[in-house]
Structures are given as structure tokens and as C-alpha cells.
């Protein structure tokens, strides 16, 4: 079959079913847009959780009057505990400075003396930032007589652990729901469009068209709608995300805009949606052929 025949038929279908083509393209664009927004929110929420987790550390408050030699030994010992990444000494004076930074007031103005203890700030490797593992490390730390108290953001970590699991579940569920509703919606819209061409398909079959001859222009149409719809979606998504980027990016959190690779994947998804939607919808009319 001459390729120009397919191209002419494809153009004819576009011309004679303008409103149906428009509807399918819009539905594909909306589906891809929805998926793109969801994935962006999902990736950024996971990133936000990671940021919060990164800030988890242990403060080991020291008794007063520790000699420098003992302090060095203690730091070195703590470094050997499994999961400890590094240990930083915060002296009483440094603690006072941090207080002043955080609360905007000199501690000596509040009290006549500096009640803040010296401490060791203990950073952990990411995989050790769970309540169970931190508790084990805490158990090791309290054995040292130089250490008076060990604290970490236990409640925050509890909330984080609980919510990160829910978030992963929510993200996965939403991903499945959005993907399947997109396929269902697009499939139905394309099916309606092909249904309007039912008579044409029937006549083509009766006069000796092969399956491929009937199918190819419809597949081209599905491809075109999918491609156009997803390109539209990607453009709208970029505009939308640029706004979010400027609004929600600050020193602590860098809002991630999807890169080119991700946008290409979205276009491929939308194009496949249109193409497969056409192919699957046509099967009904070509089944007994």
C-alpha cells in the first residue's frame, strides 16, 4: 500500500472528525498534565522528607569540667560506634552563641551565668536515622560517665517515619489511580471517536481492505493526538511549575522542576496513550476479520 494513501486517509479523518479529535487531544493533555503535576508533587514531597531526615542528629550533653585529653578520647570512642558519621564538639561558649542566634538574646542577660552545657553533636549515616537505631546508639552513649544526657528529635522522627510510609503508600496509590484513569478516559474518548467511523470501517472491510489498511490511518491519528496532547501538557506543566519554583524555593528547600528527560518520558507516555488507545479500540471492529 502506498504510504501517501495512509497519509491522505489520516488527514481525511482529522478533517472529518475535528471535534472528536479535539476532545481526544484535550483529554490526553489533561491526563498527562495530571500525571506530570502528581509526579512533581510526589518527588518534591519525598525530597522534603529527606531534607527533614537529613537534619536529624544526636546531642550528647557533657558534664562540666572534662579535661581536653578525656574529651579527645571520648570523641574518638564515639566515632567507633556503628552508624556515627562524625562528632563535633560544641563548647559552652559556642552553645551560648547558638542560643543567641536562635533566640536573639544573650544567655548572660537571662541568667547571671552560662547554664548551657558543652556537648557533642553526633551526625549519623542516613540509614541509621531511624528511631530503633538511634535508640541503640543512645544506649551506647549513656554508658560514658562524661555524658550527662543524650537527646534527639524523637517525636519529629516518629512523625516522619509514620508519615513517610503513608506518603509512599499514598504516592503509589495515586500513581496507579491516575495512570489507570488516564488510560480509561483516553481509551473511552478514542473509542467514541472510532465508533463514529464504524460504518466507514465496515464498508472498507466489505470492499477488501486488509486489517492494516484500515488500522494504519487510525493509529496515525492516535499517535498524532497523543503527541499533540502531551506536548500541550508539557508546556502547561512548565508554566505551572515555574510559578511553583519561584514561590516555594528558599534557602532550605530547592523545589525540583522536572528535567528534560522526565518531560520526554511524559510525551512518550501521552503518545503511547493515544496510539495504543486507537489500536485497542479498533480491535473490536477488526476482531472477526
Amino acid at each position: 500500500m502506498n504510504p501517501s494513501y495512509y497519509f491522505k486517509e489520516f488527514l481525511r479523518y482529522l478533517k472529518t472528525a475535528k471535534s472528536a479529535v479535539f476532545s481526544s487531544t484535550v483529554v490526553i493533555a489533561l491526563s498527562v498534565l495530571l500525571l506530570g503535576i502528581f509526579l512533581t508533587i510526589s518527588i518534591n514531597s519525598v525530597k522534603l522528607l529527606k531534607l527533614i531526615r537529613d537534619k536529624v542528629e544526636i546531642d550528647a550533653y557533657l558534664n562540666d569540667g572534662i579535661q581536653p585529653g578525656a574529651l579527645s578520647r571520648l570523641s574518638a570512642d564515639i566515632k567507633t560506634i556503628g552508624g556515627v558519621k562524625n562528632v563535633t564538639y560544641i563548647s559552652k561558649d559556642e552553645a551560648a552563641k547558638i542560643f543567641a542566634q536562635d533566640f536573639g538574646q544573650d544567655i548572660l542577660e537571662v541568667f547571671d551565668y552560662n547554664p548551657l552545657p558543652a556537648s557533642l553533636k553526633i551526625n549519623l549515616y542516613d540509614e541509621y536515622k531511624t528511631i530503633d537505631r538511634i535508640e541503640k546508639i543512645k544506649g551506647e552513649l549513656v554508658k560514658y560517665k562524661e555524658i550527662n544526657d543524650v537527646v534527639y528529635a524523637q517525636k519529629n522522627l516518629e512523625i516522619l517515619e509514620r508519615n513517610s510510609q503513608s506518603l509512599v503508600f499514598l504516592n503509589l496509590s495515586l500513581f496507579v489511580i491516575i495512570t489507570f484513569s488516564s488510560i480509561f478516559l483516553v481509551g473511552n474518548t478514542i473509542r467514541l471517536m472510532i465508533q463514529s467511523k464504524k460504518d466507514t470501517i465496515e464498508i472498507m472491510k466489505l470492499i477488501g481492505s486488509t486489517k492494516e489498511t484500515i488500522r494504519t490511518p487510525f493509529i496515525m491519528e492516535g499517535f498524532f493526538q497523543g503527541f499533540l496532547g502531551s506536548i500541550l501538557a508539557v508546556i502547561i506543566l512548565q508554566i505551572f511549575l515555574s510559578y511553583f519554583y519561584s514561590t516555594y524555593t528558599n534557602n532550605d528547600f530547592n523545589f525540583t522542576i522536572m528535567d528534560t528527560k522526565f518531560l520526554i518520558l511524559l510525551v512518550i507516555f501521552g503518545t503511547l496513550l493515544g496510539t495504543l488507545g486507537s489500536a485497542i479500540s479498533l480491535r473490536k471492529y477488526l476482531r472477526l476479520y
Partner: protein
Amino acid sequence: MINFDSISFSYPSKELFNNIGFKIDKGEFVFLIGESGTGKTTLLRMINMELFPSTGEVVVYGYNSKNIKKPEIPLLRRKIGFVFQDYKLLNDRDVFENVALPLYLAGLKPDVIKKKVFNILNEVGVFDSYKKFPVELSGGEQQRVSIARAMVNEPYILIADEPTGNLDPFVSFEIIKLLLNINLKGTAVFIATHNYDIVKRLKGKRLLQIKDKKVLDVVIKEQG
């Protein structure tokens, strides 16, 4: 050319044929008559391999209903010219494009297609309407276009399912005259109809009559 051998056919709710058999040879002109619902269209659809018999076999140009492969069905249909009561023209294309379609499907070159289409349009008498769309044509003209489309591939047989069903008596007879002319040039013609007036006027032609789930093979008697 066409051979129905020991054919039985049933729909879930109704048995239509019980062990029927007949042949149609090259160049014949055959009417198929029968009351409504006796299975005229079903029988024609078996020739086109749209439907398959429950038992027995239909052989059309060597294609056997028992073992024809799905990809062979379009090839068979290209050898048969089919004319329908409701014309089945594609409303989104003009007369030329409707008639040219089987030739595009056969992969012919545009200049050959043009020549063949204009020749056949001239032959069936709708040459002037080649740029018109089906909705702009009368019923008789649409049926002529449908016949042109069926004949443009130069099939061995033209099958017409109630070709005059939607036409007035005068136009109906014009269409039958056109089919007779086509037959005179060597193409076999097989017409299913319940228009007995037309059948009676064509003496000496072969007649297949569906009655009591059987097909009776008779010749229309000459009067007098």
C-alpha cells in the same frame, strides 16, 4: 466459480438452510428470491466470507470456507463486486474517491486509477457527478456509483443484495438494465431481490428460490 456444497446454516434462534447446494458459473445471470427473513442476505454474506456455514463448504474462486485464512478474506473480496441495497458509499469522500477506493487498496498507480475510474463512471452513466458527494446524488445515482465501485476492479462476479430495494420502479429497471449490460460483457451477476415484477420481466434467466430452508433451482419460463 461459486459452489455451495451441502450447506446448513443456523442463527441461535433460527435455522435458515438445511443441506442446500448450488453452483454459479462464469458469465451467468442469476436471481435469488425468497420471502423476507428466509436468508437471502445470509447466503450472499457466505459468498463474501462474512458468515460461515454450520456444515458443508462454500468455495469461491478456490477459496474454501472450511480452511480460508483470515488474511485471505480481503483478497477474496477484491475479486467480488458487491452492491448493497443501502449503497454503502462513504459520505466523507466524493464519487471519484468512492469508486477509486478498491483500486487504491489493490495498490494501483494514480494514473491507472484515474483512467479506470473515469471509464467505469462513464459506463454506468454518472461521469458528470464525479466530484459530487453521495448526499448530493439521487438514490438511483448512488446505486450507479455503488455499481461502479463494485465493477472498477473488473471482478468475475457482481453480487447485488436488493439493489432496487430503495428505488422507484422506473429507476429500478434502469439499474437492472445496467446489470444486464455488465453481464453481457462477461461478468457473472447474482442478484438477491424480492422485486418479483423485475424477475418476471427477465425471461429465460436462472432463478434460485429459497423455500422451506432449501434452495430451488429454476429457470424463469418464457411466456406464451
